[in-house]
């Protein structure tokens, strides 16, 4: 990132106000779990990849993930952006901006406000956020303290480098008349599907997960979604630590389940009731504190079918975006 690198196309976005929890994410880092390093990445990777597609980036270019409320950002020169995920109150110099489409903006301040529903949104910028790759990824590991901007959430005054190939020209906001469904994969009212543990000591407890409505605890984060409800009977403590994964449903001694998300630790000692299927994990990324959640048991074939369906829908949208961008 020396000054010799095409100064025309590279620039830094300045963080005017960071929002409660905004950080750089991509599709995460693989190959390091044996050293205790989580995969991380956008909590809804398909959604983040579509935001990238809308601005002409690669799937794994880095985007900004923001939580409950977005940041305010000063754009130093014209940039193409797209917003996906939970819909926030987005404005550019006072003008309202819609989500889920490529928007060209001149230099000025982009303000991403609060969300009426959902928790997490993703902002893609043409050229990608060009923070350094750490262990092969630009994802911020908030617990490990690396990746993104110094391994932490954004602060006011931070500068987000935008990669080359991001240059566009416009003197006013340009909003196309087409868009994609920002909620493309999600039926917010459907129960969360899970595969229940078949371990004899856990089978009955795992089945009980679907017998009540749970509430999302406010202490939930990217590591895990904590559930409040009638406590389940936890098996006696002292289980041997074994690997865990995003989706793992843990049952600590207090009987209140935790569903692990993308920043899951790599090993854990709590009882495992099973796992939430991959196709339904993105919905957990949008579950607000106090939201009601129901769970529904399914089998491996149903999980695989749901994953294929979500993937096909994603691929269809991506092709539609690419076709649309070619016509522009």
């Amino acid at each position, binding site marked *: 990132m020396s000054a010799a690198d095409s100064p025309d196309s590279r620039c830094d976005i300045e963080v005017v106000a960071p929002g409660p929890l905004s950080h750089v994410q991509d599709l995460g880092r693989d190959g390091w779990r044996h050293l205790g390093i989580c995969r991380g990445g956008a909590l809804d990777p398909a959604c983040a990849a579509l935001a990238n597609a809308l601005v002409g980036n690669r799937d794994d270019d880095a985007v900004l993930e923001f939580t409950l409320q977005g940041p305010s950002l000063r754009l130093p020169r014209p940039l193409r952006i797209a917003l996906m995920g939970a819909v926030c109150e987005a404005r550019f110099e006072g003008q309202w901006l819609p989500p889920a489409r490529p928007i060209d903006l001149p230099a000025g301040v982009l303000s991403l406000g609060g969300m009426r529903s959902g928790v997490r949104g993703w902002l893609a910028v043409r050229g990608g956020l060009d923070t350094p790759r750490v262990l092969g990824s630009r994802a911020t590991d908030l617990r490990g303290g690396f990746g993104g901007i110094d391994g932490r959430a954004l602060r006011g005054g931070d500068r987000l480098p935008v990669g080359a190939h991001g240059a566009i020209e416009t003197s006013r906001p340009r909003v196309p008349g087409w868009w994609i469904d920002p909620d493309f994969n999600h039926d917010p009212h459907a129960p969360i599907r899970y595969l229940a543990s078949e371990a004899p000591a856990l089978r009955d407890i795992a089945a009980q997960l679907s017998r009540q409505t749970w509430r999302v605890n406010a202490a939930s984060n990217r590591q895990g979604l904590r559930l409040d409800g009638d406590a389940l009977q936890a098996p006696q403590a002292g289980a*041997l*630590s074994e690997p865990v994964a995003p989706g793992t449903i843990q049952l600590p001694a207090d009987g209140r389940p935790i569903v692990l998300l993308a920043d899951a630790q*790599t090993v854990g000692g709590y009882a495992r009731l099973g796992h939430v299927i991959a196709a339904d994990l993105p919905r957990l990324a949008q579950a607000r504190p106090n939201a009601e959640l129901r769970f529904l048991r399914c089998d491996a074939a149903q999980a695989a079918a749901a994953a294929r369906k979500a993937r096909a829908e994603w691929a269809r949208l991506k092709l539609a975006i690419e076709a649309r961008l070619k016509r522009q």
Partner: protein
Amino acid sequence: MNAGRPAASDAAIEFEALADDAWLLRLGRVIDDELNARVHALAARLRLHAPPWLRDVVPAYASLAVFFDPFAIDAADARAWLRARCEHASAVAPSPAARTIEIPVAYGGEFGPDLHDSAAELGVSPQALIARHSERDYTVAMIGFAPGFPYLSGLDPELALPRLATPRTAVAAGSVAIGGAQTGIYPRPGPGGWRLLGRTPLCLFDTARDAPSLLQPGDRVRFRPIDALEFARLQAAP
């Protein structure tokens, strides 16, 4: 500890779906050096001819997880591939040539605020606790909890100590600690509930290094007591 227990047969490896994109392979359910060595040997075997769809092999005490790309291979096919690699897993000799890493540790004082209380609780002198903690070789049974945090097996069972009732909010990086029947090292500052006996000036985890973690699963570890002067000297060394 494992005397008289027959070696588990290959068929005893249980497969469990850990996620849509991960299988858990369980070789046993106890903390046991021989079992753990077999886990690491199996992990090494899986990595040796890793197909492109294999994303991560994560060894733990008596089990390991294998993460795969679910869009590149069917879960059932990944399982069949793994099953085939598990054949004769009990015959895999754990490599005796595992590395031994020496970790210098300044015990007690500001470096190990729990040394005196822990020694008193165990009914030994602080010097005896240091001697007994540093006279044994340990094995990195697994790495977890945080990037680069080694769970070391091989602690003298008489030195087992319960975790603090109220975890500390701030533990210094490099702190060497006992938690239950294990000992470990905190790679970076943060909260923690283990008993802090000392601290090493070595950096356990640094993403700027080619091998970010000083220790790898399966490594042997030996603690060498040092004084405050040597701690300062080693900390200042590049």
